[in-house]
Structure formats: structure tokens, C-alpha cells
């Protein structure tokens, strides 16, 4: 080994020892108990009702884009909950550790979290929220909706779609593992150099963070390839580029960003990995390294990444607002142009994350102007949404409430963003909580749009609507929490509070911190209403069953399918005649025309290969983290072997005859629910199960 590792290392267990398990930390013990109980609460009913086989065959081995999307969203929501708990812990620590007279609980001198634990919490908060909550939810939405919106039966590469899901999930599992075995990175979600170098972070925390991101990045890149190839190659006849739904346009441009930006993150982390594992000097302070190189490479990815998150959110707003204003989207062409302008310009602004590096006025000016330019197409979008609502027949359903609130958050976040784009202002508030408040406004608008989307499209995927009353209460308390926490935070930023402090030295900040803690209380109440919304909706689902168009005023192609969408999407591929096809059909009286005859269709088979690759990737990641070389090696070889083996076994899929289609469609019209046919595994795998 070329690097000096602190602590023991054995060939069998690597750096893993019994001491790696933090059994003396009461907070971790509580987290473990909570997770164990939650896990049992989910697994026990599955076993009791003997559904394990069904779950494995129909969900875990699924290559259906809708099921994969649902699993992505479930992953995202669970990780968002954990990220929220992290956020709650951060706020509570800061409000209890303000000033030299503040008390210390547990092992902390002030507050209840010692510095290293606090650092791990904000690092995991950022990493989870951005990469394992927001990204999976938006990816899941794209997975479900894009093929439906373009009239396709599935994505271009269904098996690769499943592989992407499991790679992302295994990245999240690595971070969950870090909670109970070893520790997590304490260097922020960005991974600040030189703190992430081995001598300064000798434990496995940074390695967990690094490999979790690397593995899930591969999943995201593969998903990007899938979406782009699907939108280019799998559109229904008549679905010309000028008839593409706006959410598909934004998802396409998002994935162009994803395809091109994530590899650079891979390079940034690979070079860090080389420093930590091989003893190279890419980012070290001496021996010819360059500390700022990491920051540069990271933000080449990091800035397009935030547009990777926000563009689907804009797409969601562009779908929800026309539906609940009963008007077509204002300025379709300018919306599409603005989307691509944002995506393009976003590639040349990344230095605004480190204006204070000191590259000089010319460099800072260039990036400042480019950053401010991005505000122009964003402004075009805001005006288009407002003009869409203007003189429309607006219904304030829950998704509409979330969308309008998202626009308001965009205004605050966007204006503070333009302020930050100015280097003179940036130098004074860099690394203060003003920046945190700005970007939380932006990521929360993404979350608001995500909630709007989940509630909007939930009836389409599951066949029943979510409870409006609980949903609205969820919305109001969540919005109240957001405003309370982050408006106070803007003020604290101006008062000089810096980021990432486990102990705050100025007692004058206490009023604002207390206000922020009230905001957290509002978020907790919102959380209660979220769970209540789910519980009530599922309990009352027979009552809330809906048809193809649950909202009554939807405009796009996906609302032409049954609710829930059958596994084959459309029984007969539709021919598209206009933008907003469903609205066009409704206007011309064709909305109820069903296909006169059916033809055989071809569907891909479920397969175990993606989940096996996922498990192998977890083994690889875990092995690399703990330097258990045999495990990492087997994991990597296993992935390569699975890919090669799969290439020797052609997947012929299976065919549904015209009679099958007629029978399935008749059941769908009668009951509103099309049962899953037993999608058989390929013959070679069937022998194994």
C-alpha cells in the first residue's frame, strides 16, 4: 500500500474492526433503533402476507420504467426524510450553542453535538438532499412521465434503466451504512480540500462519501443516456419536435447537462481517490499539487448540477400551471429556447462559487456577467408562467399551490442569486449563511415543484387521488417553515454568521436562531401532515378512484392512458396531431375515441441482472471504503462478469397477442385497474429462482 493508514488493517477485514461500530454514541443508537423499527415495520407485513416473491419478481427485477420511477421516488422521499432529520439536528445544535454561556449536553461543550459529529451531519445533509433525495425524485418523475408523454412503451434501454436505479440506491445504502459502521465525511458535501486528504481525514468517512457519489454518478450518467436516446428515437408517430411536451423538453436538456457534467465530477473524485489510495499529489499543499484544482473540477460539475435539478422543476411548473389555469402554456417556443439557453450558459459560470479564490478582476468579471445572463432566460420563464395564469380559470388544487409558491421562492432565490453574482457583494457574504439561505430557496423551490409533481401525477400512476385536505395542510406548514427558517437566515447572513459552525460566538443572533427553530417546528408539523396525507389517501383509496383524467383539465398525452397506467402504457401507439394532444382531442371531440382493433405488442422481460449488479457495486464500494481489497475486487469483477454474461444471453422479451390486448383493455375499462401479467424472467434466470 502506498499510503500511510491510521489504525489497523488486516487482509480479511481491511480497516473494519469492532471499534468501527459507534455503540457508545447515544444519538447513533437512537438512529439505529429508529431505522431498525422502520425497517421491520416494512419487511414484516411483506413476509406476513407472503409477498416477498412478488416484490422480488415484479418490482426488484422490474425493467418497467414506471415501477423504476416509483422506486426512485420512494428512495428520494426516504432519503429526504433522513436529510430533514439532519437539518433539524443542525438547527437545534446552533440554537442551543449560541454564546459562551450556552450549555453543553452529552459529549459536547456547547449544544449537544461535538464538532466532528456536527460536521458529519451537515455533510450528510447536503450530500443526501442534493444527490439522494432531489436527484432520485426528479429522475424518477422523468422515468415515469417522459415515455408516457412521447407515446412510447418504455425507455430505449429498459435493463440499463434498472441498473441506474440500483446503482443510485446502492450509493444511498453506502451512506446509510456509514451511519452505523464507521463514520461519514466531515468535510462538507463539497468535500473541501485539503480537509478531505488522508492526513487530515484519516478515517473512512471521506471514503464513504466519495464512493457513494461515484457509484450513484454512474447511475445518473446511464440514465441520462437513456432519456436522451428515448426522446430522440422513441417518439410516437406525429410527435414532432414542435409538439413535444414541455416537461419532456426540460428533461431532455437536463439530461444533456447530466451526461456532460457528471463525468467531470467523476474525475474530481477519482483524483481525490488517487491521493487517498495511491499517495499521489493532485491536490496536496506541497509536492507540486494544486489545492484549487479540486474546487475547479468540482464546480465545473457543481454548477451544471444545480441546473440539472432546477430545469425539471421548471418543467413541472410548466405542466401543472397550464392544467390548473385551463389555458395552454404561454410562449411554448420561448420556454424551450430559455431552457436550452439556461443549460448552455450554465456551463460557463462555475467560478462564481469561488470568486474569492483571487483569480483577478478579468476572470471574476467574465464569470459574473455569465452568471447574471442566466437570470434572463429564467425571467422569461417566470413571466411566461404568470402570463399563462393571467385570465385563466385558476383552481387552487394542492399541486397548483405548490407551483405558485415555487415561483415566489424562485423570485427570492433568483434575486439573491443575482446579488451573489456580483463579486463585490460576494466577497462580503461568501461562506456566510446568506449563501445558504439563497441556495435553500432554490433547492426548496425544486422540492416544492417535486411535491407538486408527485401529487399531480400520483393519480395517474396509482389510480387514486391523494387527500386534498391533508395535502393542503402539508403545503401550508411546509411553506411557513420555509419562510420562517430562511428569511431569518438571510438576516443572519448580513449580520456575519458564517457557515458550518457548531458553536456560534455571538449571543445577539439568538432571536433569529429561535425564529429558525420555530420554522423547524413548522416543518415537523408539515411532516406529520405528509404522513397523514399518505395514510388517509391509502385508507380511502377505493373512495378516491379516478379515471384517465383525474383533474379534468389535463392537456398532454400521458393523461390518455388508464389510471393506474397499465404496464404496456398505450394499448395502441397513439398518432399525435398537435401540441397538447389531449387538449386538442378534447376540443375536437375525439377524447373518447378508443382504438377499433388491437395488434400484438412486444414487451421486455424482467431480469435479475440489474439488482445483482447493484449488490456487486455495493460490495465494491464497501470494500473500497474499508480497504477490503478482496471484496472490492470481487465486486468489480462481478459487475464486469454480469455484463459479459448478459451479452451472451439474448433477451427476446415476450409478446402479447391481439386477444390478450383486447382482454386487458376490457378489464381496464371495467375496473380501472389493469392487473400485472406475470412478466416472466428470461429462461436462464428462471432456472435459478
Amino acid at each position, binding site marked *: 500500500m*502506498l499510503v500511510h493508514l491510521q489504525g489497523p488493517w488486516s487482509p480479511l477485514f481491511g480497516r473494519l474492526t469492532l471499534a468501527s461500530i459507534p455503540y457508545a454514541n447515544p444519538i447513533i443508537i437512537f438512529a439505529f433503533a429508529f431505522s431498525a423499527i422502520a425497517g421491520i415495520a416494512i419487511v414484516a407485513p411483506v413476509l406476513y402476507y407472503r409477498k416477498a416473491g412478488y416484490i422480488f419478481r415484479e418490482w426488484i427485477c422490474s425493467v418497467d420504467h414506471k415501477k423504476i420511477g416509483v422506486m426512485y421516488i420512494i428512495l428520494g422521499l426516504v432519503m429526504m426524510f433522513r436529510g430533514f432529520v439532519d437539518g433539524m439536528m443542525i438547527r437545534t445544535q446552533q440554537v442551543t450553542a449560541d454564546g459562551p454561556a450556552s450549555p453543553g449536553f452529552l459529549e459536547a461543550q456547547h449544544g449537544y453535538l461535538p464538532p466532528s459529529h456536527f460536521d458529519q451531519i451537515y455533510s450528510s445533509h447536503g450530500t443526501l438532499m442534493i444527490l439522494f433525495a432531489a436527484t432520485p425524485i426528479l429522475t424518477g418523475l422523468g422515468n415515469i412521465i417522459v415515455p408516457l408523454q412521447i407515446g412510447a412503451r418504455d425507455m*430505449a*434501454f429498459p435493463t440499463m434503466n434498472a441498473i441506474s436505479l440500483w446503482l443510485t440506491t446502492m450509493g444511498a445504502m453506502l451512506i446509510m451504512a456509514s451511519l452505523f459502521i464507521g463514520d461519514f465525511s466531515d468535510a462538507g458535501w463539497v468535500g473541501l480540500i485539503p480537509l478531505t486528504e488522508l492526513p487530515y481525514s484519516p478515517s473512512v468517512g471521506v471514503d464513504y462519501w466519495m464512493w457513494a457519489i461515484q457509484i450513484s454518478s454512474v447511475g445518473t*450518467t446511464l440514465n*441520462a*443516456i*437513456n432519456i*436522451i*436516446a428515448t426522446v*430522440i*428515437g*422513441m417518439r*410516437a*408517430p*406525429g410527435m414532432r419536435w414542435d409538439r413535444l411536451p414541455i416537461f419532456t423538453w426540460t428533461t431532455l436538456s437536463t439530461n444533456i447537462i447530466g*451526461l*456532460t*457534467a*457528471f*463525468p*467531470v465530477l*467523476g*474525475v*474530481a473524485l*477519482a*483524483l481525490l481517490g*488517487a491521493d487517498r489510495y*495511491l*499517495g*499521489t*499529489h*493532485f491536490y*496536496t499543499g*506541497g*509536492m*507540486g*499539487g*494544486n489545492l484549487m*484544482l479540486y474546487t*475547479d*473540477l468540482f464546480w*465545473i460539475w457543481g454548477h451544471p448540477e444545480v441546473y440539472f435539478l432546477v430545469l425539471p422543476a421548471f418543467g413541472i411548473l410548466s405542466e401543472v400551471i397550464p392544467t390548473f389555469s385551463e389555458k395552454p402554456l404561454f410562449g411554448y417556443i420561448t420556454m424551450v429556447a430559455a431552457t436550452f439557453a439556461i443549460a448552455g450558459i450554465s456551463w460557463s459560470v462555475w467560478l462564481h462559487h469561488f470568486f474569492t479564490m483571487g483569480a483577478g478582476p478579468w476572470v471574476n468579471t467574465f464569470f459574473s456577467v455569465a452568471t447574471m445572463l442566466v437570470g434572463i432566460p429564467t425571467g422569461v420563464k417566470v413571466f411566461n408562467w404568470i402570463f399563462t395564469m393571467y385570465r385563466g380559470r385558476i383552481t387552487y388544487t394542492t399541486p397548483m399551490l405548490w407551483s405558485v409558491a415555487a415561483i415566489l421562492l424562485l423570485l427570492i432565490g433568483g434575486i439573491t442569486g443575482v446579488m451573489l453574482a456580483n463579486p463585490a457583494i460576494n466577497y462580503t457574504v461568501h461562506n456566510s449563511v446568506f449563501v445558504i439561505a439563497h441556495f435553500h430557496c432554490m433547492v426548496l423551490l425544486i422540492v416544492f415543484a417535486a411535491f407538486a409533481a408527485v401529487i399531480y401525477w400520483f393519480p395517474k400512476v396509482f389510480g387514486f387521488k391523494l387527500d386534498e385536505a391533508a395535502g393542503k395542510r402539508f403545503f401550508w406548514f411546509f411553506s411557513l417553515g420555509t419562510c420562517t427558517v430562511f428569511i431569518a437566515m438571510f438576516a443572519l447572513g448580513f449580520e456575519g454568521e458564517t457557515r458550518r459552525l457548531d458553536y456560534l460566538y455571538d449571543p445577539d443572533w439568538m432571536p433569529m436562531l429561535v425564529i429558525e427553530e420555530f420554522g423547524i417546528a413548522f416543518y415537523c408539523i408539515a411532516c406529520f401532515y405528509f404522513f397523514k396525507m399518505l395514510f388517509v389517501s391509502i385508507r380511502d383509496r377505493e373512495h378516491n378512484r379516478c379515471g384517465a383524467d383525474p383533474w379534468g383539465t389535463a392537456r398532454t398525452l400521458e393523461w390518455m392512458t388508464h389510471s393506474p397506467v397499465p404496464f404496456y402504457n398505450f394499448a*395502441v*401507439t*397513439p*398518432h399525435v*396531431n398537435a401540441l397538447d394532444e389531449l387538449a386538442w*382531442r378534447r376540443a375536437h371531440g*375525439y377524447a373518447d*375515441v378508443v*382504438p*377499433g*382493433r388491437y*395488434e400484438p405488442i412486444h414487451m421486455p422481460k424482467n431480469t435479475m441482472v440489474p439488482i445483482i449488479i447493484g449488490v456487486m457495486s455495493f460490495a465494491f464500494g464497501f470494500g473500497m471504503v474499508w480497504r477490503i481489497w478482496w471484496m472490492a475486487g470481487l465486486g468489480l469483477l462481478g459487475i*464486469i462478469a454480469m455484463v*459479459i454474461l448478459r*451479452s*451472451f444471453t*439474448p433477451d427476446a422479451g415476450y409478446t402479447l397477442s391481439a386477444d390478450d390486448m383486447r382482454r386487458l383493455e376490457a378489464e381496464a375499462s371495467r375496473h380501472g385497474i389493469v392487473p400485472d401479467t406475470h412478466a416472466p424472467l428470461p429462461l436462464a434466470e428462471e432456472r435459478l429462482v
Partner: protein
Amino acid sequence: MDAGPNFDGKLPPLWHYGETEYDLISTKTLGFWLYMLSDALIFAGLFASYGVLDHNMNAAGGPVAAQVVHPVAAFGQTVAVLSSVLAYSLATVALKTGNKAGVMLGIVVALVFAAIFLVLEFADFQTLFAMGATPERSGYLAAFYILVATHGLHMMFGMLWMLVLLPQIWRSGFNTDVVTRMLNLRLFWQFQASVWVCVYVFVYLRDSIQ
């Protein structure tokens, strides 16, 4: 494309019947091309790192760029990789006539030249190690090695792909899956030549200018 036999011909087409017009081969090669573009961005990151660390101060008193790059020796590598790409490309020319023997011969020749490329590269690395120019020696050397070695790693994966493809061609002949893989491998392999052009010009030639 009709709306079904229940309706008169005056309806606009609402449903699409008949052969699916999806061109699966083109979709798969497009997907692979998109992967190659993401690969290009990996190399962009590596070239950017090289551009930042390619200064004398990043050599930390150790071997500097001019001592480390051997463009004359690397020209042998250039000929090897280009010959490998040519051999494989000629294999795809043989594919047009379904000539199994020709295709397999082309792939084998491509494998041989790729192996020669890697042998030459390892030999160059051995020379560098002998003069103390190891990857841990300095930031510049780390950047040099990771850029060149990433290209070499791609070459190794390509060779593995060729080894897997040979028995598949032997067994299954030129069905859609095998042909798609050959087309994808052509994209992959030709891309290695393009990356090598950039590596040769911007590392080996540029840094040997005194």
C-alpha cells in the same frame, strides 16, 4: 395508419398501426455515442487537470515535463494504436459482405496491435520509473500518468470487448445483437484514436518543445 374500422375515413389519424418504425440498431448506437461523449468529458477533466499541473513548479523539484515525455518513442505507440483502429475498421468493411473469417481476422490483428501499444506504453513507464518519475513523485507526474493511463485503461477494456466478441461471432454469426456490438466497438475504438491524437499533440509534442 388509421383510426380503426369502426370509423369513417374522415377522422384524422388517432392511432398508429403496423410495423413499429423504431430503428433499434440506430437507437443503440446513438446511446453508445452519447456514452462516448460523456467519456470525452472525462478526458476534458483530465486534460484540464493536466493543463493546471503542467508547470515546472508542479514538478516539486523532480523530473519535469520535458524529461518525462518521449515523443519519438510515443510515435511508435501512435502507429500501433492507429494500426489497431485501422485493422478493426477493416473488419467492419468485411462485415458488409458477412465475411466471418475476414471479420475475425481483422479483430485478431486489432488485438495484436493494441497489445503492442500497451507493451510500448508499459516499457515507457518502466523507463520513467527507473529515473524516479513515479506517480507519487509530484503533482505534474500524477497528472501525466492519470491522463495517459486512463487512455490505456480504455484500450484494455476495448481488448476485453474484442475477446468477448470473437466467440459470439463464431457461435451466433451476424445477428442484430452482434452487429450492434461491432458497430458500438467501432465507435469506441475509433474514439481511442481521436483521444490519442489529443494526448500525443498536447502532452508528448507540446511538452517536448524546449
